[in-house]
């Protein structure tokens, strides 16, 4: 057995899966302001629904929006410094140069430049100056910095200076939490540095959240290892999550999409996740979301996270419905979480998409008699408007004229028709409302390589094979069963003007998580 939990802004969902991946039970509970409350409640509800022996649970997978919300709300962020190694290069654009002022203040951001950095081919730009680093360390200490992001120019090619600088700073300031950019991002200095600084700012919060998660799972008598969902739909163990909270940023939509794929048994499809305020449309290829092609800004900060390519339109269960049968409009304004006060079916006075669904007999929510008076033709027009807008969004996400199955998930998916123009039948898998928790539970582990390689004439296959092998190795190191690992993507971009066939190669390998059962060294007494 394994358990998947999704902690969203509104609901905490949990599912219990059997060894064959079958859903044994699924529950929805309210998210609480402290992390653990909602999880404790969800696990207890799950136990009530389908009694299970906690000892028999072999892994717990959790998807959470805590970290991205903390950044967006600029709350609970640690005093952070960015140390960049690369002088005399890069000085004109210091760390956080392109950040919104509000967030620089929220992290008490301090920027330090030092010598170091590499060229694209691994030569040094300048030697590391350890005295310079110690002087910076003293200044950080004087200003109360508690978390540090170190970024060296071309560290994806050579991580040498980041690692050495971390040693030097740690010797001076043993309490400092240190995040290294080569472990977090790709080539593109500002974006990688931004992601690393964000990661650093979240480190203290991460420690608290991970402790809370661990305690609540242990409190339910479960001794299995805990994993968190990452942006790309793969897992990291909870110790890794303490150091890399930023890797969880896009796990919400990713988990919904992957859960939809598993529930419907369709690996290549469009997924529509209809929530309270928006519908998110994504495309799955071989069970994994297609990645966005553009830089992703999170809370106004440019990063190069690999986020799923999701098109959001303003249609959800809480969308305001206005207009007449001739020209009905749905969204983009929404009553959001106030649905249970404002919607007609809950005795409110606002006509929402949920009221339309109830009036049309597609959903049984609240008091249906409160919408019995609605004009039939308006109800029909609103549903047609929703269907047309969603069909258009799916069409914009398609990459070929080949038929693409459509899978609908999320609480608001009752708003969708059974057949979508241009795509065909809409699949509504069982348990669609907890697809995200299922996506967390079925996640795999990955290993990735993203570097500039030199490809001498006639050696391309050799270099590619070496890169593939390295990605597979990393997936195994991350906990994948060796014989389950397959290479999912190979991306090769030759770099213009560079000698010796310099090529940026990106390989991603994915495998099934090896389930060991109880954590090594887990306490014998399940009481915390």
């Amino acid at each position, binding site marked *: 057995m394994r358990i998947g939990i999704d902690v969203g802004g509104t609901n905490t969902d949990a599912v219990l899966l059997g060894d064959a991946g079958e859903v044994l039970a699924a529950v929805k509970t309210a998210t609480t302001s402290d992390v653990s409350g909602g999880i404790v409640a969800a696990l207890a509800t799950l136990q009530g629904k389908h009694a299970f022996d906690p000892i028999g649970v072999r892994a717990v997978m959790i998807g959470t929006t805590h970290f991205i919300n903390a950044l967006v709300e600029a709350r609970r962020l640690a005093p952070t410094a960015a140390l960049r190694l*690369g002088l*005399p*290069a*890069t*000085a*004109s*654009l210091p760390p956080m*140069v*392109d950040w919104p002022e509000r967030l620089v203040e929220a992290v008490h951001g301090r920027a330090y430049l030092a010598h170091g*950095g590499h*060229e*694209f081919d691994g*030569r040094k*730009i*300048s030697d590391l100056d350890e005295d310079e680093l110690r002087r910076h360390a003293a200044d950080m200490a004087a200003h109360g910095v508690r978390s540090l992001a170190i970024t060296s*120019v*071309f560290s994806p090619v050579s991580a040498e200076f980041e690692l050495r600088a971390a040693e030097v700073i740690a010797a001076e300031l043993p309490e400092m939490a240190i995040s290294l950019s080569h472990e977090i991002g790709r*080539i*593109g*200095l*500002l974006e990688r540095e931004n992601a690393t600084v964000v990661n650093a700012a979240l480190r203290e919060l991460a420690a608290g959240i991970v402790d809370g998660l661990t305690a609540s799972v242990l409190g339910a008598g479960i001794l299995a290892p805990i994993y968190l969902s990452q942006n790309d739909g793969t897992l990291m163990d909870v110790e890794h999550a303490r150091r890399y909270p930023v890797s969880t940023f896009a796990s919400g939509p990713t988990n919904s999409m992957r859960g939809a794929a598993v529930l419907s048994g369709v690996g290549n499809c469009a997924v529509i996740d209809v929530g309270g305020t928006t519908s998110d449309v994504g*495309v799955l290829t071989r069970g994994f979301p*297609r990645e966005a*092609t*553009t830089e992703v800004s999170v809370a106004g900060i440019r990063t190069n996270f690999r986020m799923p*390519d999701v098109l959001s339109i303003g249609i959800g269960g809480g969308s305001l419905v206005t207009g007449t049968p001739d020209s009905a409009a749905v969204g983009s304004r929404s009553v959001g979480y106030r649905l249970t006060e404002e919607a007609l079916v809950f005795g409110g006075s606002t006509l929402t998409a949920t009221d339309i669904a109830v009036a049309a007999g597609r959903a049984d929510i609240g008091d249906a008699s409160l919408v019995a008076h609605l004009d039939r033709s308006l109800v029909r027009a609103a549903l047609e408007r929703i269907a047309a807008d969603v069909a258009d969004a799916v069409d*914009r*996400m*398609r*990459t*070929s*004229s080949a038929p693409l199955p459509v899978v609908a998930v999320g609480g608001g998916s009752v708003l969708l028709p059974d057949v979508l123009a241009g795509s065909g039948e809409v699949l509504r898998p069982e348990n669609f409302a907890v697809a995200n928790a299922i996506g967390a539970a079925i996640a795999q582990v990955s290993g990735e390589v993203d570097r500039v390689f030199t*490809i001498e004439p006639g050696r391309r296959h050799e270099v590619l094979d070496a890169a593939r092998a390295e990605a597979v190795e990393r997936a195994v190191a991350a906990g994948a069963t060796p014989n389950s690992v397959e290479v999912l993507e190979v991306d*090769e*971009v*030759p*770099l*213009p*003007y*560079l*000698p010796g*066939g310099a*090529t*940026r190669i990106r390989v991603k390998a994915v495998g099934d998580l090896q389930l060991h059962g109880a954590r090594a060294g887990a306490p014998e007494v399940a009481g915390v």
Partner: protein
Amino acid sequence: MSDPTGGHRLQRLRIEDLADVARGAAVLGTGGGGDPHIGELLARSAVRRHGPVELTALAELPDDAVVLPVAMMGAPTVMVEKLPSTEQVGRAVEVLTRHLGLRVTHIACDEAGGVNSLIPVVAAAELGLPLVDADGMGRAFPELQMTLPTLYGIKGTPMSIVDEKGNAGIFETIDNTWAERLARTATVEMGCSAMISNYAMSGAEARRSLVPGTLSLAAAIGRTITAAKGSDDPVAPVVDHLGGRLLFTGKVVDVARRTTTGFARGEARLEGTAEFTGSTLLLQFQNENLVAERDGELVATVPDLISTLDLASGEAVTTETLRFGHRVAVIASPCDPRWRSDAGLALAGPRVFGYDVEPVLIDLAAGVPA
């Protein structure tokens, strides 16, 4: 010549103009020319420190002006990692000035497109000099000798080249193609991103050989994109502004890249959407977009400008970021008429890039939308 900026000539570049210049420069960069985002950040930093940059209209340059173009040379991928410094840009001009023994009066752009529309803004701000509202190509090209001044016999050397570490060099070459070859080698040794200043010329030579109104045009295109954001069709206003043609709208279904002679060569295949449903477009690029074929028929070639714009935002997409699933419009717009001469085509026509085809250029007589 008609005013390409539609009467929007700028007198000076202020901080708030730079985002639009960068947006427009990316369109004129025709898929290459480097990511203008870094150029914009550098220009913002320089203008914030030194104040706005005065623009001089090409027609107003005095005969005896000393004009020094400045540019970044190297791989765009390197530039977004090893960020240049604003001082480095100014030094390229200082090194060449010292060598020439002349007092520079104006800075200019070698190319209109991508990062090299903004690097001269940095130089002008750093050195407190006016910037000529013009450039040497009217678009972006991958090699040093592919400029209109070359057609006028203006030499690309002496040329300075500087890196961020403090190294500097001067080249004197027998022709502009040699300048490209030697500077490229030095650039790689310097870590694949260097600043250069070359094609030093008098005001009279600049008036004869440069393309007028480049920065004003980039700013106007950028404003057009900004204004059309969120509209149903953000691409059409850009096409109108450039007097261009919409060649295609579609989704990228395949991108194949290969390396040959140091350029990111490749092709992208697009499947049509909207009015182009059922059609296929093949886009061939080497840093810049060079040849477009729709359903097997050539519809546009270099030296006309072939730009790819994101269908949702209207923003230009570079060939490096073009990926499977991208939804883009492909547009063509007319190059400077001098590129259409025999000498112009011999310097930068499709055959120069290894495509054995006759150039396919927009028929200007067919009535260009104003």
